[in-house]
């Protein structure tokens, strides 16, 4: 059984130290920007997610909302078609 997407997203956030707040203390729908995610770090987050999930974010998803919470990221990954990769 693969790990749920949310847990893998959390691992990426943690490994890359992209937040100021501790990710463990944040809910899946907590605002990552309020937790210290900067626009600069968003691009690094995107690159780390592409690496971890072996996917590519299309330009249309490159907007603030896509990376606003663990759930939002999971939803975008789903939209890109992560389920195919994970299968």
């Amino acid at each position: 059984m693969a790990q749920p997407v949310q847990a893998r997203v959390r691992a990426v956030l943690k490994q890359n130290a992209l937040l100021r707040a501790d990710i463990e203390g944040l809910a899946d729908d907590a605002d990552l920007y309020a937790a210290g995610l900067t626009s600069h770090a968003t691009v690094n987050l995107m690159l780390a997610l592409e690496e971890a999930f072996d996917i590519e974010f299309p330009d249309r998803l490159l907007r603030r909302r896509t990376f606003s919470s663990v759930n939002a990221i999971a939803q975008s990954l789903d939209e890109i078609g992560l389920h195919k990769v994970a299968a």
Partner: protein
Amino acid sequence: MISPLAAARAVGVEIAARHADDVDARARFPMEAITALKDCRLLGIMVPESDGGAGAGIAEVASICHALGRSCASTAMIYAMHQIQVACIVHHAVKNPWHRTFMKRLAGDQLLLGSATSEAGVGGDLRSSICAIEEKDGRFSLTKQAPVISYGADCDGILVTARRTPQSPASDQVIVVVPREGYTLEQKSGWDALGMRGTCSNGYRLDTTGGMEQVIPVPFADVSAQTMLPVSHLVWSALWLGIATDAVTRARAYVRSEAKRTHGSVSDGSWRLAEAASLLQLMKSNVVAALRQYEVAMGSEDRLTALPFAVAMNNLKTGSSQLAVQVIHQAMLVCGLAGYRNDTAFSLGRHLRDAHSAALMINNDRILAKTAQLLVALREDQGLLE
């Protein structure tokens, strides 16, 4: 009734232009021109009609900045900075009762708004704050060390960025509207600068208190990405275009006067006039295309926070700021000493000095570094008419 643009043109030609050299020489606030703009009720034009304004859009405001830029860059910059603040309130807080009342007052009394985003210790990084909102029983207090607040001494209200709470990270910011009666300014530095001397961009310690309802309810990250940055780059570029346009007008007048004197033969350097006009056209096309792009994106949060949009607005700023200086330099080569001297009808020193501020106002290096970062993420290229 004449249109706002026609009224602004008249203020530019009849009032701002007449005082521009004195404003520059004495580094003083362009009181005559700003008073005339208030008299023409041009300060509240972006406020919705239902609240006493004219419901004008960014394109109309940019046209006014362009018109004023042709006469007095400091006046144009003050008008532009004011409208950036108004846009932030109108786009993000007009549904809030406090802000709505304030907007009505702004349109009615023609209030002039200033900006305190820069902060000692963070330089030109708009998206970081050190100072923080301290809340107690629905009231806030805030102290900011502001290295520059343009026309701080002459405005009727200021929009201030700060961290949301004393515990918030530097990037978790809000922007708060503080009317004149709600703050004190202690001047810390003056403004004896190369150009834009009439903006009187002194440094201050700002102390303010007020009600929490004065805080714009959306995060500053959104206000910045969707309004403050794109609107700044659009209205600034429009006024820089205005400065460059006047420089080319002067170069043309110079070549014409030479042609008259020499009975029709144009001077050897006059081909530069054609080159300057070509650069000016490039600059104008950039501004117009970006205005269109903004209007298409307006109202869609996704479009306004999309990376390609941010890249386009950044490029507009770095490109226009460089082109303005190039165009004026060409015009000066056309006019020769008559352009270099400060006492002729073809003088271009003020234009050149004013235009040099463009690359520093949010430093181009900083913007280019951000753009480069965004470009790493982008993959697709857009078609010709997209």
